[in-house]
């Protein structure tokens, strides 16, 4: 999917240095911003890191700063679900599906099964109740229930080290070595 803001947003040297750290771990400590500043070095202050992170959130580059829980270990089960929806009803049904709190991701995709979403529920019984309710409310009965049988990988990390940038950095700091 191409977003409306498809062009790469300019990231400063500090943006990249901060993202490289916080995308995998935001310190669990009394003064996490100070810890990040120390790790970055180059005389960066706690307040600069704090303002940088707030700015990354305001610009929508960071969607959320918090904990990623293991849904299963919290006692929830989740599944991918696909629906075959008539083209003229896709938006209506898409919005209906999105209204469920157990739905976290919901996309229209290029296939006869054209609506794909993830559904979480506190139990198997609750999951099937939800699916039944969705069938009744949407009138769509052609649904694929696709729970994970086996997981091969789940981790997203992008390389923000300044050297990886083609656009260059507006900041005046020297490039650093990649630290991984």
């Amino acid at each position, binding site marked *: 999917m191409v*977003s409306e803001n498809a062009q790469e947003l300019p990231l400063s040297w500090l943006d990249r240095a901060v993202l490289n750290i916080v995308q995998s771990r935001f310190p669990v400590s009394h003064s996490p911003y100070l810890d990040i500043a120390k790790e970055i070095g180059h005389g960066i202050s706690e307040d600069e890191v704090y303002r940088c992170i707030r700015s990354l959130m305001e610009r929508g580059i960071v969607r959320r700063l*918090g904990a*990623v829980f293991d849904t299963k270990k919290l006692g929830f089960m989740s599944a991918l679900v696909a629906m075959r929806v008539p083209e003229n009803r896709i938006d209506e049904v898409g919005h209906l*599906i999105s209204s469920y709190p157990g739905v976290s991701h919901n996309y229209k995709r290029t296939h006869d099964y054209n609506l794909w979403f993830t559904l979480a529920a506190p139990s198997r019984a609750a999951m099937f109740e939800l699916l039944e309710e969705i069938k009744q409310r949407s009138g769509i009965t052609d649904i694929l229930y*696709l729970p994970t049988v086996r997981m091969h990988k789940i981790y*997203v990390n*992008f390389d923000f080290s300044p050297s990886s940038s083609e656009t260059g950095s507006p900041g005046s700091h020297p490039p650093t070595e990649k630290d991984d």
Partner: protein
Amino acid sequence: MRFSDLDKDIIHQLQGTIPLDTLHPYEEIARRCGISEEKLFEKIALWREKGIIRRIGAILKHQKVGKLYNAMSVWRVPDPNKATEVAQTLMAYKEITHCYERPTYPEWPYNLFAMMHCETMQRCEEIAREVAEKTGVHEYRLLLSTKEYKKESLQYF
């Protein structure tokens, strides 16, 4: 594992975005939950150890950092060993972020799912072609997302 009301309060505070109006976000979370910051740190450490918390960090908006195209590749690989091989071949690409096996149905024969985030659509197609070549598995489809209706982190409690 059973979660107490306090546990649920803590999860509630951590499942969204931590308080951003302070330099000491955990102190604020602890205050909201009525516990000490040390007690909160203990809980977080325990949950990390048990894998209940996978990580604490930033969740990025992919589209905004230059990863523009999101494609779901699906592969028909009935043999489990072969499925592992295809999964490993797929995961060698940095554009592949998730790889799962899922059940099949008469109307849905694809059991292996791999999510791709690529800078161009051509790159997504190229990866799929290369993996098909390398593994000899040619029954695959690329499902592009043409509209995002929802993308959020789950709210548990």
